[in-house]
């Protein structure tokens, strides 16, 4: 009797399970929320001239490499106001991740490293977080002398050690932390 009862319960529960598992629903698509697809450096001269350096990778972790583009011309010996933007263009409208970086300014820093600097360009930070350390979203960019093939590497670090040697002046060497974005901009100065 016990056997029959047991079998009955087992079969019953199994059929109940299979019936509730026959949910043929389609999984919901995930649009990556905090992925950075686009890094945009906007340089504005006192004259109102705007130059944009952009690196865009619309397939995220996909096989396609980021696409680099430039709008406008960088003039020699000119001081530009630099504003960097981190965007997720997979969302519509595009999500501005720059805002989150700014909100959590103490945990982020943008580094500008010149790996080829024929122009002798320079970048100085013009913003600070609540602790008085730079974040690097707003900068002053001095273009330097006429030259070609200059390279600046822009790196967004999460949780860098801002107190480490040289970090507050923009030297990435001792920064540590994890890299959220790392793009290479090539530019000419005319």
């Amino acid at each position: 009797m016990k056997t029959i009862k047991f079998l009955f319960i087992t079969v019953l529960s199994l059929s109940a399970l299979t019936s509730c598992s026959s949910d043929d629903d389609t999984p919901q698509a995930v649009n990556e929320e905090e992925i950075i697809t686009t890094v945009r450096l906007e340089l504005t001269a006192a004259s109102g001239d705007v130059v944009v350096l952009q690196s865009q990778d619309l397939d995220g972790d996909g096989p396609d490499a980021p696409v680099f583009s430039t709008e406008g011309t960088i003039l020699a010996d000119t001081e530009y106001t630099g504003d960097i933007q981190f965007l997720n263009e997979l969302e519509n409208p595009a999500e501005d991740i720059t805002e989150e970086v700014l909100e959590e300014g103490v945990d982020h820093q943008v580094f500008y490293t010149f790996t080829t600097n024929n122009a002798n360009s320079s970048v100085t930070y013009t913003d600070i977080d609540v602790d008085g350390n730079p974040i690097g979203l707003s900068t002053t960019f001095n273009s330097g002398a006429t030259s070609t093939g200059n390279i600046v590497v822009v790196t967004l670090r999460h949780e860098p050690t801002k107190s480490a040697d040289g970090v507050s002046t923009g030297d990435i060497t001792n920064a540590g932390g994890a890299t959220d974005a790392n793009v290479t901009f090539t530019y000419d100065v005319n």
Partner: protein
Amino acid sequence: MKQIIIGLVIAISSFSYGQDCSYIFLGELKDFHDGTPIESATIYQKESGKYAFSDLDGKFKIENLCPGTLTLTISHANCETKTVSFEINGDSFKTILMEHHIEELNEVSVTAHVDKKETKTAQETILKEQTLKKYSALSIGDALKEVAGVSSINTGSAIVKPMINGMHSSRLIMLNNNVRLQDQDWGIEHAPNMDVNAVSQISVIKGAGALAYGGDAIGGVVVANPERVFLKDTLFGTTTLSGQTNGRGYAFNTKLNKYTKKGWFASVQGSLKQNGDFEAPDYVLTNTGSNSKGLTFRAGKQTFESGFEVFYSYLNNEIGILKASHIGNIEDLVSAINSPEPLVIEDFSYDINAPKQEVTHQLAKAMYYKRFKNFGKVNLQYDYQNNQRYEYDIRVGDDRDTPALDLKLQTHTISSDIVLDAIKGYKLKFGIMGRYQDNFANPDTGIRRLIPDYDKYDFGIYTTAEHNLNAKMTLDFGLRYDYNRIDAKKYYITSRWEERGYDEDFSNSILEDLGTQLLVNPVFDYHNFSASAGFNYQLNEHNSFIGNYSLSSRPPNPSELFSDGLHHSAARIELGDLNLTKETSNRVSASYNHNSEQFNLTAEAFYNHINDYMYIEPTGIEQTIRGAFPVWEYLQTDAELYGIDLSANYNINEHFNFSNKSSYTVGNDIENDRPLINIPAFNTRSSITYTNDWKQFSASLTSDWTFEQTKYPDNNFETYIASTNETVLVDVSTPPSAYQLLNLYAEVTLETSDKTNLNIALSVNNLLDTNYRAYLNRLRYFADDLGRNIMLQLQFNY
């Protein structure tokens, strides 16, 4: 039982009547299983206090009986003692069935001293409670390393995956109380969800010989079982409390068992463990704390003829992952590898922050068995498992506390087997299994799924046979067929879909095109045949040989098929392959066992040839906005693994004992003529133990020596580091140096009363505080392994 009591009452009442006492009772004793007569059994006649013995035909005779009740107690060396009563009102003849299989009886009798192996001809080692208790505060993966040839692949010190002869994850089957663990075992950083405190005995079976558990155990099977049921009225328990210096951890475990003579049993067990940041000899390993909670409940009734059991287990583990191992891109990996110390070192803390994982595993099972005369035993089991896995990454903004991975894996299994033991000298087993599995990847993480939603259906059917050819030779055979179907729904990035060439081979499976993403529905069917054959030859009292051949195949797991994306902790893009086929293993093994009072030796050798062996290796570099990442792809090759495991034990004198366990494994990629990755290096572990009858004192000193792995594939790659404008070689291959660790263990047992005792154990691991990194620890790029740890453990048995 009721009949016996009634019978006794009648028997007592019938004494008062003076009647004709000349009846004869003829009895015949037969084996319950195969009907063979049982000779030389003792038959005690309760009413008269006389004894009788059964003859060669199992028959006996009792004369001069009065009318009334006759109560007989029959005992035999290999049988459970049985009491029966009969109503006597004339000459009579009765057949009495006895339960004559000592090994079968182990399941229900008190004789727990006899090791009950799961297999006859496989390389099997049993770990008992006495050994397991040392690992109360650690993980099951640590405990299994007591077996020669078993190592582990770790992520830090809390995520320990067992490795048998160089194989791990989906190549091993883990069984918890006869339920095959379904806990997303495909990932290296997914440790088995089993609490070492909840099991009382573990069998480690190397290779796929144990076909009853599955046909895909190319590496081996780990069978963990709870206590055997005792057939007596008793209540006992164990409470263990321990504290350790490294990680400032504590562990608490308590277990209570109730058994009755009639076969009813119930047990409940609970454990709690917590530790903060562990420490390497020179620094704190920040964010390596963990927290574990376990509960098991088990109840049922077990008698010789039938029984049932219900079982429930809950295990929750929250494990912090070394903060310095969180890296953003290859540039971070290069600086981490080049830095002698981890890049993040903070003060000690119990806090567990991201990156971390939190896994809850629940298992429920119901089992019923019944034995039939002259036939055998039928088992029926249903089990359900729910594995909820969260992985938290370091994220920003609103997503800070949202898991990066949220997978729920649910598995239902129904299985049945029949053991036929009616034919003398043979034991046959037939089994059938059906399984349904549902994986749900929660999209609320806001991160593309690493493992897609899928439904998986498994069906298995097998038979095994055991034949005692003669007193010395036992043969066994097994055959199994498995069918697996995976029905997945996955989003691919369109560019990836095309880059993989799936647009040509799998275009039929596209359900929906979302522009940048494609929803596809790949369905795979696999048919696997497995077989095994072996012998066990007992040369004489001291020496025996075992030989075994097994054929097994394993279909690709979801990770091997569907992986597609960035693996943060490894800073690599991992790509599965929908074109993978099953891998097939042919394994031969031979063992020699010597067993004498003074000296024990087990030597186990194996050769395993695996066709279409699945593995992952770097194949290129891809650029993303985060920087460059190496691409690791799942590939297939033909591989061979071979090795030898030695285990020796020598009693020097009454007090001193020397033991050694050594293991040597080689793995080769035959097609590409190079070594396989992640094969354990030669390891030898020697212990000298002093024991004394005084308070059951024992102390041992163990040297654990792991050589440098010199056979490894060169997976190093060059990458361009933008910030420094340099191209550097990333050395992810070179194994760390050899290391030797000394461990000390001492214990005493104090009798606190007749039935209670207190066991006090003190252990020191890494006695000399040696700095070392292990080849098989994935965090070896980032930090040293654990420094000295002193642990005190109190175990109260009552």
